[in-house]
């Protein structure tokens, strides 16, 4: 009987663009004093490694990023905030698993939408709504169920005309708000000029992780940007007409 010592670590990273991680301690960070704890990324990597037992409580493997380690407890194991109990498993035949075995958990990409759909009128509010809510992503690591919960906390809209807005609400439709159409909302924006705009929204999430013993905070935040949402802004011009469109369906503007 062996004790499997499981080491788990959380790290926030930007896949494919790790260079943009802030708070590094290379030349710039060390000289300028920006070497500090600051995590911003777009996914959570939860890595784990384990060694075969014999020395309960000893950390056998850590991989290259050995921070925030949850150390394997000595027997008997009592689950707590700090310790995870994964003891008393046979290790015969198990492969030597290392940090290379990473499970990546990404929150669902936020979706932007607008009212009216894809169009707006210059000078009048176009109402944006983000489809982003608290959700969980499940996976497994060495056969253990791992659940990560993402909660959106802020939304940064880039309207495509050079303006941005940050809100804590994802927005809601005019009807859900009980407002008349083309009235301002917390997430609306009035474009100054007609044209085609690409709107994106960067949603910031906080994350919690559950290994079966309750939710644990994951330090830092995650920011995911939606795909560009096209909006065509048109100008509204008024003109006097003699009949209604029902009466003269072939008239201009009908």
């Amino acid at each position: 009987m062996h004790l499997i010592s499981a080491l788990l670590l959380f790290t926030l990273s930007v896949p494919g663009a790790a260079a943009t991680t802030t708070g590094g301690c290379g030349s710039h960070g060390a000289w300028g004093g920006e070497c500090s704890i600051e995590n911003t990324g777009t996914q959570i990597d939860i890595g784990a490694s384990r060694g075969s037992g014999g020395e309960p409580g000893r950390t056998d493997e850590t991989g290259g990023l050995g921070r925030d380690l949850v150390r394997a407890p000595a027997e008997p194991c009592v689950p707590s905030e700090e310790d995870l109990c994964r003891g008393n498993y046979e290790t015969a035949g198990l492969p030597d698993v290392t940090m290379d075995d990473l499970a990546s958990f990404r929150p669902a990409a936020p979706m932007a939408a607008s009212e009216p759909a894809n169009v707006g009128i210059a000078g009048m509010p176009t109402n944006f709504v983000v489809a982003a809510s608290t959700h969980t992503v499940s996976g497994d690591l060495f056969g253990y169920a791992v659940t990560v919960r993402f909660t959106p906390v802020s939304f940064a809209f880039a309207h495509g005309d050079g303006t941005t807005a940050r809100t804590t609400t994802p927005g809601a439709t005019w009807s859900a708000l009980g407002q008349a159409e083309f009235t301002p909302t917390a997430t609306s924006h009035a474009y100054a000029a007609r044209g085609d705009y690409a709107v994106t929204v960067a949603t910031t999430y906080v994350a919690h992780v559950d290994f079966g013993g309750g939710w644990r905070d994951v330090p830092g935040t995650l920011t995911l940007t939606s795909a560009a949402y096209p909006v065509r802004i048109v100008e509204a011009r008024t003109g006097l007409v003699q009949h209604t469109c029902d009466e003269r369906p072939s008239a201009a503007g009908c």
Partner: protein
Amino acid sequence: MVRVRRRGAAIGTLVLCAWLGLTACTPGEATPTPTPTGFTSEEEAFAAAEATYRAYVDALNRVDLSDPATFEDVYAWTTGDALSEEKRGLSEMRANGWSVSGSSSVVSVTPESYSGGTGRGDLIACLDVSAVQLVDAGGKSQVSPERPDVQTIHVAFRFDDGSPTGALLTSLGPFDGQSPCT
């Protein structure tokens, strides 16, 4: 020929049985695993890592932000995230016309962990940056008022047989535990 082949097969079976018996019946023994990566011991790994970090700091001390050729030595000791960060940081400071003066010195290096299986490990470095001045093109200091004299830096490294020390730095980040630097 046939007999020889059979004998070979028999020996193979014997070896297999012995191996199976060994793994199945000796619960105290860990299954031996090959070590495809470099260092023969933790001590050797940490010694190489410390030498690498000290060489990296020496290279940093020789950096002239107006001369990108001096960046190459810094890049030579880093890889992965650490390399990306240095490329970004040094290029950015150069592009902004900043200049650096004074030297930083390694106060201490504390081994943290090492995995023989992956050839990767990490250590905590205490770096005295109190003598380092960083100014922008206008001569204005770019040093944060919060900068501690001694930075606590989490250094991750991995074995690399192309490196003169046998190791390269893979990431340089803040350390969020109890600092050994005070």
